[in-house]
């Protein structure tokens, strides 16, 4: 018993909440086909279509009540089960349209003149809030969405007499459902009485509603607003919050960018394992900067500094060990001089410009030196005096003649080269140094004389004949 009471209370709250939702526009054609009683005709802002361009509607359209812009489905008694065929086709279907050209001018049913433009503008052909469900649908056993009523046939624009764009309930135009629009319907709801106010009592126009309480008007959210209705009681607020939490848990957030009027968009969650980089800890960084270079954290970089560090594999192969080189300790050159690094002390002053007198140049060097002295002709450059074996050479006038040189042996280094080097080994016991003599210059003179005897060519044949006759004559 208590469970029934609780269900009834929940159902009551939902019915009240749904009753506060705005109702949708219903096309006249749909209303005509639906076995519902049309609402009383209100100021129908039917826009007159052009006479010539608009096709003539069928006669049934004229006999039917005039098209209304706002019409809510009338309340019907609860029916245990209502089929769609009964809902839409209880009445005879409209006669097939046959275009007829009346002889008389067609009287166009026009809207009243007092229909304001605001009424026309307020007609929202594409309401953001889906239309309210009919009560026939509400009374169904299974909980279904309120907008699941499908049109059995596509709505033809020819049937739209009023010119109001019909709202299609087909599957081609999916409706974006809001949280408040989804209501679970249970079987118990069918037993609930009708709401205390009908949909036709709602006023969507600019006309003031004098007979309605002011609080109901204030609580009505605007048609273009998605703001939900304020809960009346604490229980209702709690129930709504709990329901909202349940809906958010199973809700899939569209990934595409919503239109700007749709409000804030919930951010999609990142996949597991990926997270945004954490902000650096400023204090930690400051401490790292303040710490000295030789401190504890100097050699160990922070994880932030490492970044994507790749650990290299260790080298393969035999392990090499490097011996520590011995410490080089330069010995001091002189003890008396102060030892400084990378400084070499030059020898003392006593070694400058002197050599031993007993040193003798090698004989090869002496020969080369003499030859060089002769080529240069510089007599001033004398070899160093050596008083051991060779007498000191004094500058003397060059001899005019050739002095014989008797070298002990003459060797030639290379025979293949164009310029061979001849080395003359002087005997060691020779008192005088070998003297190299040059061949005197020879004036250019003819070496051989070739005499060309040219026999004079005879000018005439007579001369040659005479010379030839003279041959052999004594």
């Amino acid at each position, binding site marked *: 018993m208590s469970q029934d009471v609780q269900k009834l209370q929940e159902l009551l709250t939902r019915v009240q909440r749904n009753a506060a939702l705005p109702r949708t526009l219903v096309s006249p054609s749909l209303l005509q086909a639906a076995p519902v009683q049309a609402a009383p005709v209100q100021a129908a802002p039917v826009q007159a279509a052009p006479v010539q361009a608009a096709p003539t509607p069928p006669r049934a359209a004229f006999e039917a009540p005039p098209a209304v812009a706002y019409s809510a489905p009338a309340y019907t008694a609860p029916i245990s089960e209502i089929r769609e065929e009964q809902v839409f086709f209880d009445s005879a279907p409209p006669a097939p349209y046959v275009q007829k050209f009346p002889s008389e001018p067609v009287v166009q049913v026009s809207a009243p003149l007092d229909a304001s433009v605001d009424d026309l503008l307020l007609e929202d052909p594409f309401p953001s809030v889906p239309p309210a469900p009919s009560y026939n649908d509400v009374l169904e056993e299974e909980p279904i969405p309120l907008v699941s009523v499908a049109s059995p046939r596509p709505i033809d624009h020819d049937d739209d007499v009023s010119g109001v764009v019909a709202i299609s309930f087909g599957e081609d135009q999916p409706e974006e459902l809001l949280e408040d629009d989804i209501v679970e319907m249970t079987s118990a709801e069918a037993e609930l009485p009708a709401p205390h106010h009908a949909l036709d009592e709602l006023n969507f126009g600019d006309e003031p509603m004098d007979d309605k309480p002011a609080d109901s008007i204030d609580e009505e959210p605007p048609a273009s607003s998605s703001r939900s209705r304020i809960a009346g009681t604490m229980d209702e607020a709690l129930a709504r919050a709990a329901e909202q939490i349940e809906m958010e848990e199973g809700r899939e957030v569209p990934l595409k960018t919503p239109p700007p009027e749709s409000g804030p968009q919930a951010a999609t969650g990142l996949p597991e394992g990926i997270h945004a980089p954490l902000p650096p800890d400023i204090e930690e960084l400051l401490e790292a900067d303040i710490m000295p270079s030789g401190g504890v954290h100097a050699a160990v970089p922070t994880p932030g500094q490492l970044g994507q560090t790749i650990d290299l594999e260790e080298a393969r192969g035999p392990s090499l060990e490097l011996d520590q080189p011995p410490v080089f300790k330069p010995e001091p050159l002189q003890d008396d001089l102060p030892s400084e690094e990378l400084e070499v002390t030059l020898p003392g002053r006593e070694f400058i410009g002197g050599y031993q007198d007993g040193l003798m140049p090698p004989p090869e060097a002496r020969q080369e030196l003499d030859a060089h002295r002769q080529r240069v002709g510089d007599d001033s450059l004398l070899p160093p005096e050596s008083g051991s074996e060779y007498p000191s050479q004094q500058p003397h006038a060059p001899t005019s003649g050739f002095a014989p040189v008797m070298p002990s042996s003459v060797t030639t280094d290379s025979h293949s080269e164009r310029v061979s080097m001849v080395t003359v080994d002087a005997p060691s016991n020779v008192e005088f140094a070998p003297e190299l003599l040059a061949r005197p210059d020879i004036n250019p003179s003819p070496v051989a004389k070739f005499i060309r005897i040219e*026999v004079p*060519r*005879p*000018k*005439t*044949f*007579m001369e*040659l*004949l*005479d*010379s*030839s*006759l*003279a*041959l*052999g*004559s*004594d």
Partner: protein
Amino acid sequence: MSLNFDPSYALEFDFGRGQIRMANAGERVVVPCDALLALCQGASEDAVRDFGRRLGTEAGRVMNDRLGEAWQASLETVLEHLGGELALMGLGSLGLERWGQALVLSFSHSPLGWAGDLLLGSVLEGAMQRSFGRDTVAIKLMRDDQKVRFLMAGRSGADKAGGWLSQGVPWGDVLSRLATRGAS
């Protein structure tokens, strides 16, 4: 004096009379070569020499008529005209060689062959006699298939050269000896 030999209209064939005449000369008889050789071979040496000298005299005379003053003619001019006249006789192509002071005349492509060398030498002696008024002896130096060379020498020189040639001295050495002996 024209340098080039012009053989135009040198021969005139008179078919009505059956005669062949040479320009600025008398009648000619065209005879077979082998018949002429047979005649020369059957005749004595002096007869062949005389026959040949007569042919040469005729050629010298014609050349003189062409050249005017032949004694002033150069080697080339004499060779051109004398050789032209001998070519018209069909004796071959005349050539001239100078070996020092020796004058050597040659015949090439002679149809007479080695059997007509005495005749050819005699022709040259008659031409020199008629053209230049010198008595010369043509000594045959050598002979091959195509050419025969004759040394134009005097009597003494011809005897020496003939003697060396008979001794087997090459004709080059003969010319050298004649030149050496002559120079010394």
